[in-house]
């Protein structure tokens, strides 16, 4: 075991522990998925030949490349999902602002003196 493996195994193990604790507390499935992902990371760091074997199987030269591609796709997908959610939130915010504006519409009356903001 080299220094890199020792350090990263420690970090990932800690992360996995935190995720497991969170899962036990909240029973959120996402925490369990994260815990499993950290455990997988520990395995891959300590047995790099596993990713190399998988890469060969797919016709990619090195295991590190496979991991890079996988992470890149995952990141792009996650980013796009966030973008969609952001757009949805923006539209919802607009609807909210719109309803507020309509509810509080000032109606034409005798030319009113300019009041303070928000009056």
């Amino acid at each position: 075991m080299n220094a890199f493996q020792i350090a990263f195994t420690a970090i990932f193990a800690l992360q996995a522990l935190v995720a497991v604790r969170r899962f036990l507390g909240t029973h959120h499935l996402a925490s369990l998925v994260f815990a499993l992902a950290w455990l997988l990371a520990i395995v891959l760091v300590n047995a790099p030949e596993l990713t190399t074997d998988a890469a060969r199987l797919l016709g990619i030269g090195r295991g590190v490349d496979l991991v890079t591609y996988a992470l890149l796709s995952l990141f792009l997908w996650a980013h796009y999902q966030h973008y969609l959610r952001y757009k949805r939130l923006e539209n919802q915010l607009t609807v909210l602002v719109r309803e507020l504006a309509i509810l509080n519409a000032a109606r034409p009356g005798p030319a009113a003196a300019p009041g303070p903001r928000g009056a």
Partner: protein
Amino acid sequence: MRSVGRGVAAGAAEVDVSRYTFPSATLYMPAVPGRVFIVVPAYNEGQRLLRVLDDLARTPHAVVVVDDGSRDDTFEVARGRGVYALRHTINRGQGAALQTGISFALREGADFIVTFDADGQHLASELDQLLAPVAAGQCDVALGNRFLSGTSNVPPMRKVVLHLARLFTFLTTGIRVGDCHNGYRVLSRGAASAIYLKQDRMAHASEIYDQILRAKLRFLEVPVTIRYSDETLAKGQRLSNSLSVLFQYLFGKITQ
């Protein structure tokens, strides 16, 4: 054909014009069968809005100003002029403000909805020309066209941008429009109900063509004057802006 001319009884003569106190004002009293609401989206337009409202006060129609979260006195100006004044608590963009005004006008029972820019580019005196074909049921939407009139002093650079926008509109929707992103429009109640702008910012002007097409609305282009001045050009759309509008539009299309 949608419900053009609903509520014929509510004629223009019903509107109380006594609250308009402009001595030199000419009063345009068109025979429009129904209630007309003029929607004016405004963002930091304070002083320019004042003149626009004076101009619009010569028409007998209801005016709805939607203040899009301005930092200046836009909202107070509108309130002081005795028009419907709505305020977005947070700035949401021109498209959002337009839709707010349209939704409000529909709930107030509008038969015809006019969209009118707050920066003084449009002339209230030309409203009747735009209203006429919609009121007569010839079309559901009347779109202002600045190139048909020959009275608009369109700067050359602006011309290039507008013609590119026309081409883009044709390529994406197949609609052949003579002008693009002209904020002067008249919608019948049916048309306004069929349209819902989701592009909060500037891309709504392209989006509206998509929706006209999807809802199978009949539209006509009517010559209008656009007054260009240093003042109106200061805040208008620029070439550098159009790319960002293009991206807004395309991304909006993908994500809807």
